[in-house]
């Protein structure tokens, strides 16, 4: 299939490698919708890769497909050079522990009926790791590491905690399993600004301490820039651009969609925004019937007839930037 290219993949040493990932859903009318159509990327040990895009671009589907929850329709997911697709159910359950996921809604991620101590120890108790005593100790340690006082929260239930605290419990629950890869699916979007900043700092520290690889799913480029090493921009199930975060700091040409995202980030400052009087841009096209050729062409200011027939592939623009566009080269 006309993939989006693999020019940006690096040779060897990756902790996570995803190739030609396809995620398909069936709708009620038995139609098939591709939420993700041929996405490839890799994450090195200790690296944070962010996936950015608007809602409906398939970024959360990528996260779940990597976890095999459920397994992707097509494509390969390799964790530490082990192909997850080739594993049987039991082996998959075991190797999935090396990847942990934290979700957007801090409260829905925690079973309301359980106490914090049980929530954090859940993984260890599933796998029968250690003794009750050592589990308690590990849980306390990791709660402390995410900035919660174990003595205070130990016997609390989720509804007695704030959103930020719940999110910390979720992170603690993931970290207790000592994962190689932490997947964060929009974990900041439901938190307040001041809490968001605390979490960003926490994630950055944790990652450095534990040599953690992170897959960070988000929609806000300013947040993403703060935490990532590498950024992958997705649009309607396809990759538009892959770039190292440093490329954002120098004047560079970007994929028109990345450019649109960059311009849409609200900036704080005393200067007045001049509102554009341009007519409403086109909405996101339906994923049921994506545009031919380049999927962004219906909203793209640079679109040419070529974009409707030929799908652009990711091409190397510089050492740290790969763009899938016919017009920007």
């Amino acid at each position, binding site marked *: 299939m006309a993939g989006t290219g693999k020019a940006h993949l690096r040779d060897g040493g990756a902790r996570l490698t995803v190739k030609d990932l396809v995620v398909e859903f069936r709708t009620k009318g038995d139609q098939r919708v591709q939420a993700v159509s041929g996405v490839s990327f890799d994450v090195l040990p200790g690296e944070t890769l962010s996936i950015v895009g608007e809602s409906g671009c398939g970024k959360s589907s990528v996260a779940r497909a990597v976890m095999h929850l459920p397994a992707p329709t097509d494509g390969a997911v390799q964790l530490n050079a082990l192909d997850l697709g080739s594993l049987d159910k039991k082996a998959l359950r075991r190797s999935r522990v090396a990847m942990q996921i934290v979700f957007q809604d801090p409260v829905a991620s925690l079973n309301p009926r359980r106490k914090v101590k049980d929530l954090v120890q859940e993984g260890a108790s599933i796998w029968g790791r250690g003794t009750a005593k050592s589990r308690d100790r590990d849980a306390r340690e990791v709660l402390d590491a995410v900035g919660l006082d174990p003595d205070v929260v130990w016997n609390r239930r989720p509804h007695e905690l704030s959103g930020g605290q719940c999110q910390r419990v979720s992170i603690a629950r993931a970290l207790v399993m000592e994962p190689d890869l932490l997947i964060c699916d929009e974990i900041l979007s439901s938190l307040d600004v001041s809490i968001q900043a605390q979490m960003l700092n926490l994630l950055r520290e944790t990652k450095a301490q534990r040599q953690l690889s992170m897959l960070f799913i988000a929609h806000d480029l300013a947040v993403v820039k703060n935490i990532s090493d590498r950024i992958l921009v997705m649009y309607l199930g396809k990759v538009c651009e892959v770039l190292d975060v440093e490329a954002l700091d120098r004047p560079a040409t970007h994929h028109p969609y990345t450019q649109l995202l960059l311009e849409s980030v609200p900036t704080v400052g005393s200067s007045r925004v001049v509102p554009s009087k341009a007519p409403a841009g086109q*909405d996101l096209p339906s994923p049921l019937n994506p545009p031919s050729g380049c999927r962004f062409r219906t909203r793209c200011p640079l679109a040419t007839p070529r974009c409707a027939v030929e799908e652009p592939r990711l091409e190397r623009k510089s050492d740290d930037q790969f763009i899938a566009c016919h017009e920007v080269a």
Partner: protein
Amino acid sequence: MIKPLLHVRDLRTVFQTARGAVPAVAGVSFDLQAGETLGIVGESGSGKSVLGRTIMGLVAPSRTTAVHGTVEYDGTDLLQASPKRRRALLGAEIAMVFQDPLSSLNPVKRIGIHLTETLRQHRELSRSEARKRAVELLDMVRIPEAARRFDQYPHELSGGMRQRVMIAMALSCDPKLLIADEPTTALDVTVQRQVLDLLAVLCQERKMATILISHDLGIVSGRSDRVAVMYAGRIVESAAAEDFFRHQHHPYPRGLLASTPQLDSPARTVLTTVPGRPPDLARWRGGCHFSPRCPNVQERCRQFEPPVEQTTDGRTLACFHPVAPKGGEVNGRNR
């Protein structure tokens, strides 16, 4: 001085809950001139949404809710006005745009019905006139193929389009005051920009006063004449937007701004954060509400609530120990 369009004095909204009295809005005062945009920023629980709803008269006093103070719109005290008088003002002169456009639109009513209903309630219009006006309104908020959208249901529209419909509904009777409560929080960034731009243009064209409520300083920045930051039910600092973003005196807005990730700051910047979290209003035992999180806290702050004071440069400030701008003193900066 020109008489303000909206004159709010010492507004308080107190909810009785099982855990005690929660003063969600605890003494808010401000004036809003015709055509002016006031940006109100605060985190969840700061009382910013309750403030908007109280002004709008959507928080009805009851056994569990008490509303005190003055909300004077164009000479009428909205809190004292008869229900009939209030109904005549709401929707016609004062309109509101809510956060979630899906739950604010009735799923079984067509888009057009939403619009014509408000129109026909406040104005004597025939069915066909109302329809014509509704299509014009949809056009005005730049909804493509307005005539076709008229007969569609809310779920057939995207989030951005639904929010545009909400704006069209709010503007249908040419209000003089628009309260926009987190109008773009449910939307994607690219759509957010479009909707905010649309609001700004419409407000300018119609000389409409606007209260823009948001949790994000970035949304208010560059789109308001004045900015007010709320914390624990009070406006802790307010100033003309330009002055506000140049320097914040109160440590809370300072912290809020420092903890917002910026696109133009270098990658992987360690953010300065505001430690801790907002206070539990039901359990509050006096002192400045920000004192537990404040870097400049002193003994006095823990005991007394700082009063809201007006500085000479047109700011208001509720802080005993404000942060002075470099090379200037706090209260003496005359313009």
